[in-house]
C-alpha cells in the first residue's frame, strides 16, 4: 500500500484512538495510580487530609477483606449455577426452533425474544413486583398450590435473581445458538437420517457439537456480565435491604467504598482486583472449553 494512503487510513481511526486514550487508558491508569495511595487525615482530622503513597497496601487489604472476597465467591457460585441453567434452556429452545417448521420458528423466535427487548432495570422492577407478597400474583398462586414461599427471604434471593436473569437472557442466547445451528449444512442431517439416526441422536451427536463455539461465546459473555452484576441486586435492595446488604456483590462494595465511605483509593484497588479476577476467570473458561474441543 502506498505510504501516504496508509497514513490516511490511520487517520480514520484517530478519533477512536483519542477517545480510547481519554476514556479507557487514562481512567485505568488513574485508577491504578489512586490504588497505590491512601488518604490519611492529619492531626485531629481538622487540617484536612493528605495522600500518602502506600504501595500495595490497598491490594493486600482487598485480598484479605472478607466482605469483598465473600462477595466474589458469592457471585462465582451463583454464576456456576445460573449460567449453565440458562444456557441449557437456551440450547434446548434453539434445538426446538430448529426442529419445527420455518414458519413456526419465526413466530416463536419473536415471542421468546420479547424479554430481551425489555431494559434490564425494568425487567428487574417487573419481577420484583411479581415476587412481591402485596402486589404480585406469585404469592397467591403459591398459596393455592400449598406453598408458602417468600421470594425475598435470604435463602430465596439468589434463586429469585437467577430466575429474573434467566428469563431476561434465554431469548438472546437462544438466538445466537440458533444462528449457529442454521449455519450447519443441512445435508449432514439428511445423511444421518438416511443412516437411520434418530432425531435425538442427530441433536446430540451433530447439532450440539456444531454449536459448541456459540455456547463457549455466550458462556464467556455471561461470566463477564455476572462478575459485574449490580443492577438487579441494587434494585432488590430497594425492597429488601435486610437480605440484600450493601456488600452483596463486588461492584456494590466498590460503589459503596467510593460514594458512601468516600474511600476512592480502596475502591480503585478493588476495581483493579476485580478486573484481574475477570481476566483470570475468562482465561480459565476459555482454556477449559477449548481444551475439551481437542
Amino acid at each position, binding site marked *: 500500500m502506498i505510504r501516504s494512503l496508509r497514513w490516511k*487510513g*490511520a487517520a480514520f481511526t484517530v478519533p477512536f484512538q483519542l477517545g480510547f486514550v481519554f476514556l479507557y487508558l487514562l481512567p485505568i491508569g488513574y485508577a491504578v495510580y489512586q490504588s497505590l495511595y491512601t488518604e490519611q487525615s492529619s492531626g485531629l482530622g481538622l487540617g484536612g487530609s493528605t495522600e500518602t503513597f502506600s504501595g500495595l497496601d490497598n491490594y493486600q487489604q482487598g485480598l484479605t477483606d472478607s466482605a469483598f472476597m465473600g462477595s466474589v465467591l458469592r457471585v462465582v457460585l451463583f454464576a456456576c449455577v445460573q449460567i449453565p441453567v440458562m444456557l441449557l434452556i437456551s440450547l434446548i429452545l434453539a434445538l426446538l426452533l430448529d*426442529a419445527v417448521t420455518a414458519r413456526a420458528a419465526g413466530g*416463536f423466535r419473536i415471542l421468546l425474544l420479547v424479554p430481551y*427487548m425489555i431494559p434490564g432495570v425494568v425487567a428487574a422492577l*417487573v419481577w420484583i413486583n411479581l415476587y412481591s407478597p402485596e402486589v404480585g400474583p406469585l404469592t397467591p398462586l403459591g398459596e393455592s398450590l400449598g406453598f408458602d414461599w417468600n421470594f425475598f427471604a435470604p435463602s430465596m434471593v439468589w434463586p429469585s435473581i437467577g430466575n429474573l436473569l434467566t428469563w431476561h437472557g434465554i431469548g438472546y442466547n437462544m438466538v445466537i445458538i440458533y444462528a449457529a445451528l442454521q449455519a450447519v449444512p443441512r445435508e449432514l442431517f439428511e445423511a444421518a437420517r438416511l443412516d437411520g439416526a434418530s432425531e435425538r441422536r442427530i441433536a446430540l451427536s451433530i447439532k450440539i457439537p456444531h454449536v459448541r463455539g456459540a455456547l463457549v461465546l455466550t458462556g464467556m459473555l455471561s461470566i463477564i456480565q455476572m462478575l459485574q452484576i449490580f443492577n438487579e441486586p441494587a434494585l432488590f435492595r430497594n425492597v429488601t435491604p435486610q437480605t440484600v446488604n450493601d456488600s452483596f456483590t*463486588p461492584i456494590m462494595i466498590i460503589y459503596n467504598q467510593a460514594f458512601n465511605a468516600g474511600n476512592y483509593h480502596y475502591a480503585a484497588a478493588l476495581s483493579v482486583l476485580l478486573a484481574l479476577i475477570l481476566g483470570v476467570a475468562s482465561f480459565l473458561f476459555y482454556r477449559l472449553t477449548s481444551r475439551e474441543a481437542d
Partner: protein
Amino acid sequence: MVLTEDRTKKPPTRTVRRLGRPDRAARSRGGQRFLLIGLVLASVYSLFPVWWLIVAATKDRTGLYQSNGLWFSGMHLWDNLHQLFTYDDGIFLRWTANSLLYAGVGSLGGTLVALATGYGLARFDFPGRQLVFACVVGSFLIPIALLTLPLYLMFSEIGLVDTPWAMLIPCLINPFSVYLAKVYTESTIPFELLEAARIDGAGELRIFFSIVLRMMTTGGATVFLLAFVNTWNAFFLPLTVLRGEENWTLNLGLYNWSGKRLESGVDLTSLVLTGALMSIIPMAIMMVAMRRYWRTGVTLGALK
C-alpha cells in the same frame, strides 16, 4: 401404518427415496406437536410478566393490591398515565427526553466514530493497526467499575459531572461498535471499488462519506441500534455521574421511585409500573421498526 408399508415394499432403496418424505412427515407430525408444546410453554414464561405489567398499568391502587394480577379489574390506564406525566411537575417526561437524548445523540456520534474506525481497520494497512484492534477486543474484558469510578473523578475535575456531557462523551467510544463496524466493512466494501474510486480521483474523505457510508447503511443501522439499546439500558454510569434528578434517565428515575416506599413511606408502585410500561414502548418501537437490522446484528456480532 407407514412403517409396515415401508417394510413390505421392495426394493428398499427405491422406497426409501419415494416413501422417505411422507414417512418422515408422519413421524415428525407427532414429534412436532411435542416440540410445539415445549415452545408454547417457554413463550408463556417469556410473556406472562409483560402481560402482568400491562394489566397492572390499567389498575388503580385498590385493584393493584386486591384483584387477581393476571386479569383486568377496572380501566384506570388514563388516570395512571395522567398521574405519571404530571407527578412532580412532569419529571417523568423530562427523564424520557433525557434518555432519548443520551441514547439517540450519543449512539449517533458513537456510530460515526465506529464506522470510520472500522473502515480504517478493515481496509487500510497502517503501522499500529494490530495494536488498535487489540485494544478494541481487550476492552471487552474491562469491568465497568474500573472505568466509571476514575471517569467520575476526572469528569468532576473538569466540571462535567451532573451534565448531559457526562453521559454523551462516554457513548462516543464504543469498542463493540468498532468491532461490528470492522466486520461489516470486511463483508460489504470490496477493495476493487476503493481502487476504482481512487483512480477516478476521489479523495479519501469523499470516498468514505459518499461511497462507504452509503454502502454501510445496514451495518451502520445495526451498530446504531445496538448502541441505542445499550445506552437506553445503562444504569451504572448514569447512577455514578448524574446527581440531580433533572438530568436522570428513565432507569434512574424508576429506580428512585421504587426505593421511595421504604425510604420515605411514599408508595409509588402504581407509578413505577405504569412508568416501566411506558419506558418499554420506545424500545419496542425501535426494535420492531429495525427488526431486519438487529437480527443480523445480534448474530453476526456474536459469531464472527
